[in-house]
């Protein structure tokens, strides 16, 4: 029964992917991509990776989808790039199928029993007082990756801002719509946003021991922020706003500060003070979540339009 479900899910995934790749129309392809992301989220649940499922749906499908939809809207209806020579199509198909087949064979041929670090993690996790092994890996054992991933996120925002017409990257990003928000949007923003913020904070809190964590929470918070912007409930902040920038920096540099503090408390960079691991980790997660939420939201909003003349 579950095998049948998995098979159907896989086929749907494949159909979704083919739909994205084969569709000529940009908007339809993006919509298909969002659907593909949701299906992928289901696949993650089936693979006992609820943390990943949440991340995939929130980031890979949700926020990415919003970014891509905005992109489609900004592009001219008729793309100027000529399609590759259609004669290449069979060749491309052959190459792709060959790669897929080889890869499939490689995956099936992976050794049994599978090598795994699960045992190592299980041994080391109790010392951190965390219940969720994925959070343990992300924030303790491979904290360097996570720290740098925060820098990547910040850097991609810098990259987006660098596309501003203003070399100093000042001012507010253009509003999502030039017209005032329709009443239902405003209503939704007013009602849903507080609940959503609560959900986001819950995800953060739960992440220590259950699926969830900074990224999933940050994505939900960012979505709530965007909802408020779309509902005309808050104004898009100017990028040079000092408070905003502090929020951007809180995550990566709060994390970095904790890393340095580890030298004093645990004798090693990115070590946690013995006994207070969980508290410090949650503090780090709060800072990270704040930054992620703000960064994701600003990435969706795009480059600032330059200093306003007031």
């Amino acid at each position: 029964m579950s095998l049948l479900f998995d098979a159907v899910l896989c086929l749907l995934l494949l159909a979704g992917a083919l739909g994205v790749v084969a569709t000529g129309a940009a908007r339809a392809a993006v919509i298909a991509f969002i659907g593909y992301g949701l299906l992928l989220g289901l696949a993650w649940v089936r693979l006992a990776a609820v943390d990943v499922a949440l991340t995939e749906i929130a980031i890979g499908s949700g926020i990415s989808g919003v970014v891509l939809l905005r992109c489609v809207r900004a592009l001219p209806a008729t793309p100027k790039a000529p399609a590759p020579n259609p004669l290449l199509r069979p060749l491309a198909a052959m190459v792709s199928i060959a790669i897929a087949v080889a890869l499939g064979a490689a995956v099936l041929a992976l050794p049994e029993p599978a090598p795994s670090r699960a045992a190592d993690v299980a041994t080391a996790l109790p010392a951190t007082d965390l219940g969720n092994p994925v959070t343990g890996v992300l924030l303790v054992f491979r904290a360097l990756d996570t720290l740098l991933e925060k820098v990547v996120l910040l850097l991609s925002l810098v990259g987006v801002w660098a596309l501003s017409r203003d070399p100093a990257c000042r001012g507010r990003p253009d509003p999502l719509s030039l017209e005032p928000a329709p009443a239902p949007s405003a209503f939704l923003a007013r009602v849903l946003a507080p609940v959503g913020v609560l959900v986001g904070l819950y995800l953060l809190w739960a992440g220590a021991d259950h699926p969830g964590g900074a990224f999933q929470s940050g994505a939900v918070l960012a979505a709530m922020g965007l909802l408020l912007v779309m509902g005309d409930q808050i104004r898009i902040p100017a990028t040079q706003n000092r408070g905003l920038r502090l929020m951007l920096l809180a995550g990566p540099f709060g994390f970095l500060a904790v890393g340095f503090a580890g030298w004093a408390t645990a004798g090693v960079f990115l070590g946690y003070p013995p006994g207070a691991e969980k508290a410090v980790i949650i503090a780090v997660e709060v800072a990270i979540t704040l930054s992620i939420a703000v960064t994701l939201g600003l990435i969706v909003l795009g480059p600032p339009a330059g200093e306003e003349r007031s």
Partner: protein
Amino acid sequence: MSALLVLAITAPLLGLVPLLLLGPRTGERAALGMLAVNVAITAGIAERVAQGGRALGYAVGGFAPPLGVGLRADGFAAAMMLMAALVLLFTGLFAMTGPGDMTRKVNARGSAGMPSTFFILLLSLACALNLAFLAQDLFTLYVALELLTFAAVPLVCLEGKAGQLSAALTYLLFALFGSVLYLLGVVLIYGLFGTLDIAHLAGLMAHGAGGWTAAAALALMSAGLMAKAALFPLHLWLPPAHSGAPPAASAVLSAVVIKAPLFLLVRLWSDLAPLPLAQVAGPVFAVCGAAAIVFCGVVALAQERLKLLIAYSTAAQIGYLCLMFPLAASSDGPWSALAWTGGTLHLVSHALSKAAMFLAAGLIAETMGHDRLSGLGGVGRLAPVSVAAFGLGGLSLMGLPPSGGFVAKVMLLTSALQQGSWWIATVVLVGGLLAGGYVLRVVVIALQHPDSDLPDVRECRWRALIALALAFGAMLVGFMPLSPLPFLEIGRPLTWESVLP
């Protein structure tokens, strides 16, 4: 455990705080300060490695690999780091707002410093490069490569012109294609061995374990790295991106950014892959490298714009390092060590000389208002120091003494001849001829009488001197003795033993 390794990654990031929170001038000064600190840190690492005669290591968070992530600096990595740090510092100085930029008296055409964003990206590059040189975990290296790409792409399009934006987009997309192939290799490796730590993997793979899946994983990772390094025939993005960017950006892109994937390619095949595999893969890279040297060299000769010429020269010069693979992977001790040293010295001297050339070209273009070769006659009179920097940098590309390029060329030639690789020796020589052609073409034009009236501007002298300093750096590398450098052998073969407690 050496804290310097951690500082090498984190110190450049600290410079981001003032850049994002304080005014542009303060931020710029802080950034330059951090770049100088970065040089000090990398020099410290190199000094420790040389003193101790063994690699430095650090287990981040106190968790040793394979569960945790390890950092490790051997001689090769330390040399690369120091080189990159120096280039970044000099480029940063070149890009700063200097005396005269405000008054605009010196430069009628305006040779202003770069915006704060440039310095944010420069510091991020410093972090990413140090990470790429130090990290020993294949996934951390993936993060480092992505960090590098995301810092490099906006550099291409800082001025927001249409050509730059489209070059940046192609660069980004192709780099992403490369990184996703790399990641595919990484997942296969993890599936096979359950670890991503290079030292552990080297031990696990030593006896051909993993079979064809491991081979496929290595191939995928290599292809991804080649795409990021723009190795022929995957160089589609390099000429427009490197020639379109502002000069300071071009300099770091050509000099150091593409060196990180090349470095990792070397790491992959000299430290991770077992020798029999490396001996099979070596010729494949060498063929690509040879094609790059010859083909891109010829295309560089045909260019009509100075910056494009230099960009194609970069695409060609990448090939030299790839010639090293089959030579270094041989079991012929001294000659493979010589090739290894030659390849590394080429990497270093190319970085210094190419940075000098791009900076000089930027100043030349700024002085003349364009970079069309046909209209550059007599620019030697307006921008003598820039032309000198270009020429001295070119000396290294041509492989003429005294320059790092010469020493590297002699070492590669010697190793190739001793191992009977006549075709590699021929390619090295032909590459030198082509480089001579395109470098001298520019120098000759610059020294000619002007065909029309020269504009009434002068080169920005202090910036030209920075370019000249880099060119002299490339020449200084030429005073290396012509024998394998023991420093580069420190910490090989790769192991955590005696590196981590």
